[in-house]
């Protein structure tokens, strides 16, 4: 029994469904996380990411489907799941009236560690997350980045088998984000099994071994970042014109040469189109542009960004219902 459990992947999700009133938050989500790997759950606001995290951390019961975390059913074996998981990010919080040290000690005591072990554990985590200097200050006065690090430290108190990071960098400034990325990379290289949710394609690309893209409660794609990129038809051919009046001429040439509808970025004076076997077509495209009297400032082939991948998978941009930049502070809690 024990051996079988060890061989099972630490997270197995099968057809999870959950609705809130009329809103189908999760509509048959399945995924697996292998031991020691980081899965990036990528999707826009309201895609169902936090709902899935809440179900997998026993905070919410699904309407249908099943999920096992660390070998235990999240619905029927909550008491076995809880000691084996850590949760950080927008679903969790630190207590602003307690000091950093008190926060960690309290969490350790609530895992029922003896007092001295709890104190030692808190100290080790404060050191590891560079919070020792701020340890005796109330967490309410911490910077956003420090609070997230404390939050992450709290989720690691009991050495969890699976770590859930729910939008760990949302609301952080660029410096705070880079700090969090470094910390998460360190955890990953130490062999942690992590489920990470994010709205930022770059973040998933940077941190995750496998990316699962969800939209409106459904998994619409999964694979490595490279696999997802290749699903849009390989490369992108981008032409930048030297005179904006020639933009439309360039668009017509690319429409004939590419695999889909070209995307025009008028501000940059550029037109892009997905192409397969781009290198072989490049010479022909340059000839056609020349024949159409389009003066080229720049032409080249490149890998698609994950934003373009999302666009081709969902038909809308990843950030369409949340156009604010990454640094935006967030008010209160959200459910989706």
């Amino acid at each position, binding site marked *: 029994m024990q051996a079988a459990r060890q061989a099972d992947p630490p997270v197995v999700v099968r057809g999870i469904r959950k609705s809130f009133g009329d809103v189908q938050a999760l509509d048959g989500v399945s995924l697996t996380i292998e031991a020691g790997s980081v899965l990036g759950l990528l999707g826009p606001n309201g895609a169902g990411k936090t709902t899935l995290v809440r179900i997998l951390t026993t*905070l*919410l019961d699904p309407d249908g489907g099943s999920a096992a975390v660390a070998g235990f059913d999240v619905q029927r074996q909550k*008491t076995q799941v*809880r000691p084996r998981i850590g*949760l950080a990010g927008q679903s*969790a*919080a*630190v207590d602003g009236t307690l000091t950093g040290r008190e926060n960690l000690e309290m969490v350790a005591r609530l895992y029922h560690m003896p007092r001295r072990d709890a104190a030692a554990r808190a100290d080790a985590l404060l050191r590891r997350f560079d919070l020792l200097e701020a340890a005796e200050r109330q967490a309410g006065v911490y910077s956003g980045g420090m609070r997230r690090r404390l939050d992450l430290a709290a989720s690691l108190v009991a050495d969890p088998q699976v770590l859930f990071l729910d939008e760990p960098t949302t609301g952080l400034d660029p410096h705070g984000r880079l700090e969090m990325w470094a910390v998460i990379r360190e955890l990953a290289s130490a062999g942690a099994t992590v489920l990470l949710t994010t709205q930022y394609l770059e973040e998933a690309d940077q941190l995750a071994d496998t990316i699962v893209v969800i939209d409106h409660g459904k998994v619409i794609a999964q694979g490595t970042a490279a696999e997802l990129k290749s699903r849009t038809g390989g490369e992108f051919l981008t032409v930048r014109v030297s005179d904006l009046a020639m933009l439309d001429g360039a668009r017509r040439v690319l429409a004939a040469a590419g695999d889909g509808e070209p995307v025009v970025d008028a501000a940059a004076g550029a037109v892009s189109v997905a192409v397969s076997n781009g290198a072989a077509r490049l010479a022909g495209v340059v000839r056609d542009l020349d024949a159409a009297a389009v003066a080229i400032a720049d032409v080249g082939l490149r890998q698609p960004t994950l934003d373009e991948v999302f666009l081709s998978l969902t038909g809308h941009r990843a950030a369409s219902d949340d156009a604010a930049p990454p640094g935006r502070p967030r008010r209160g809690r959200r459910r989706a």
Partner: protein
Amino acid sequence: MMTDALEVLRAEARYGLVDALQLWKRNLLAYRRQPDLLVFSTIQPVMFVLLFAYVFGGAIQTGSIAYIDFLLPGILVQTVLFGSTQTGVGLAEDIRSGMIDRYRALPMARSAVIAGRILADATRNLFVMVLMIGVGFAIGFRFHGSVAGVVAMPLLGVLLGLAFSWISAVIGTSVKRAETAQVASFVWIFPLVFVSSIFVPVDTMPDWLQVVAENSPVTRAVNAMRGLAHGTDAREPLLWTAGWVVGIVTVFAPLAVWRYRTVT
């Protein structure tokens, strides 16, 4: 499902008290670090003692008993009732801030977050009551009963506050905002405070209201505390108060824990 339910009960039995004590400590630290909150929540009841004693003291007839002796046990009960509303406010705030999600994902007793909050509120109630008795003493309040009565009177107040805190906890886990919890509390606290023997003897009220007032848990507790303070026979109201406390906790504690477990 059954095995998990058994596991949950086992965890409650094993960790219910130690986990609640951790949360009690956390909430007391929070009070201590907001001295302004503590100061004002202390000034208000002290102010009530002085205002009622000096403004109404001459107008309200309380027979052979001095009005301050009549008033003080009542004001203590009013204070614990108002204090119990803070249980719901604190819980609503924990839910809003996301703190409660951290607790719920921990392998701790389900009742501990609420029980810890209630214990902290009870501690604060005891502190404020002792202070008010001190102020009362300065303006003429005296105990006329036994030493046991002196000790038992504030403890009975604490017990009543504990019971009402569970009602407040149900409200706190049912509303979306701390402000709502605060305002919602007044809806049930005010009638309880005024339709009682806290400020005036109930026999001046209309007959139908007297029936309500005489049987209210507030009047029973106030009469019991007066009995303990004045050294008169308090057995009957004591029994009634105990009955109310047990009844309220039996109904509202499971309700509050259930709300806490299912809140999203």
